[in-house]
């Protein structure tokens, strides 16, 4: 989990809900299909345009709505380096960590624009706008959760833990 290669910033507003992230009508189609329609209501170009290493930046209460784990899974499936938001809905935050998607809270996102090039270092919590030369600090992921993310989520994390146990 070292600092990523620069990716593109995708900027979203407040209150992005789980139904936008994992639209109900594609829930039966599996994660592939779900990810292909992720956030299409807000930005039809997102799912097709996003590349591994890109960073999603959003306003407050990101991931509000249902407890469906697929909302976080869809974003991870698209290869995002992480999500930086002013705040997260509680259950989404839990699901994201447990699925290995870095989620970082930053109260002040001044200076970030859609399309910026940026890197994200989950260990230090630094969002770096590489072309603008702006560093945006986020609240680092608590230490006891970083291991879960580094291992790719709760299940692989536990697998490792049980494999290590005598």
């Amino acid at each position: 989990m070292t600092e990523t290669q620069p990716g593109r910033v995708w900027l979203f507003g407040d209150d992005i809900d789980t139904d936008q992230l994992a639209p109900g009508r594609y829930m039966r189609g599996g994660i592939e299909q779900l990810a292909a329609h992720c956030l299409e209501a807000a930005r039809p170009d997102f799912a097709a345009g996003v590349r591994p290493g890109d960073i999603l930046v959003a306003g407050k209460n990101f991931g509000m709505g249902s407890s469906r784990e697929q909302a976080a899974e869809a974003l991870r499936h698209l290869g995002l380096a992480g999500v930086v938001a002013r705040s997260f809905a509680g259950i989404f935050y839990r699901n994201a960590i447990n699925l290995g998607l870095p989620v970082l809270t930053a109260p002040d996102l001044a200076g970030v624009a859609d399309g910026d090039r940026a890197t994200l270092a989950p260990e230090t919590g630094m969002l770096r706008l590489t072309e603008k030369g702006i560093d945006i600090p986020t609240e680092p992921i608590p230490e006891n959760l970083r291991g879960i993310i580094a291992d790719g989520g709760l299940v692989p994390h536990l697998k490792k833990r049980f494999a290590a146990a005598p």
Partner: protein
Amino acid sequence: MTATLAQKIIARACGRESVTAGDVVTARVDLAMIHDSGGPRRVEPILKELGVGLFDPAKVVLISDHFVPGDTDEGARILDLTRAWAREKGVRFHDGVGICHVVLPESGALRPGMFVVGGDSHSPTGGAFGAYMFGIGATEMAGVLATGEIWVRVPGTILIEWQGRLGPGVMAKDMMLALCGRLGMDGGKYQAVEYTGEAVAALSMQERMTMANMAAELGGQTGMIAPDAETARFLRGTGADVTGWEQDWAWLRTDPGAELQEHHVFDAAALPPQVAAPHSPANAMPATEAGKTAVNVAYIGACTGAKYDDLAAAASILKGRTAAPGVEILVAPSSRRDQDRAADDGTLGVLEAAGAKLLPNACGICAGYGAHRLGAEVTCISSTARNFKGRMGDPESKVWLGSPLTVAASAVTGRITDPREVTE
């Protein structure tokens, strides 16, 4: 140092002197509750993948409720799998005797001060007993079952104080619908919602369970009420030895002066019976403002709305009355125990004489299952907790939420009715 009730329980569960809101800690669970829908069929594949068994079968309670009575092939298959798993693992198992959130405390397994997870979104119900209980998904539950541990971000407390006493015809459900309307479905901000005040202290345990249950509708991680003599009375009824509870539970309260995230004060006496219009509990309004909407199904069911106290409330209205022409009353008592009690004291007889049809002690149409799923033409007044579009049947069906008193009054008149209109 002062602390909130939630923080004290979490501190104990993670073995620390104290915790601060925002800290992420790893806590040991005292109890894990799962049901047939999110339980064995979802967690077992993950446990297999991990190659481990349960951390402690004695701390796992399995309750079948969603697919009971198993009247479809899929439901029957899931129940078979659930029963086989219970036998194999040796967990505590309550099969077909009611809805998990009601059966768990009835079984005596839940005690004040416990740190508990449940594999269902209405798990905050357990908070009514002064436990810290919250809902988690299947992946996390598998992790808990494997390790006995879970991480939790220490919540702040949103204290909701109800001063004064509820007026006649007003119940816990009305308080919760009013809160959903006022604070919104994210008003709980995934923090600990704690209810306090004279009106809450005066509520029966089952009414308090309705309040804690619907912390889920407020978006809280849990909903809590500090334990007291009423809590002790209820637990004694389950056969628990609660001698010395005053001393044992003395630590289970939010200290005066503890830092709160929010503090809201409401006047219970001024609260009229509430209903919530389709398709959200946040669409709350006084029942008198529902425009005399005609209904054709009156549903008294679910963990929130068909416990003994709910059945007795409905019977108080339906005694000597019958359903209006064209209105079907459906009653699915939350548990076998509550149904037996209602049968013994004549409550059930009153409901049946009014024309109510008795359904199994299970989630039933609240979870969208069973032969009584609502059709497209149905407008239902329901004592359940949520009325999301299509949840109880056809997406075109319309569900209004209200207290069991309001559901019963509406059944009698055939339109949404403030129960005080019928009793006055």
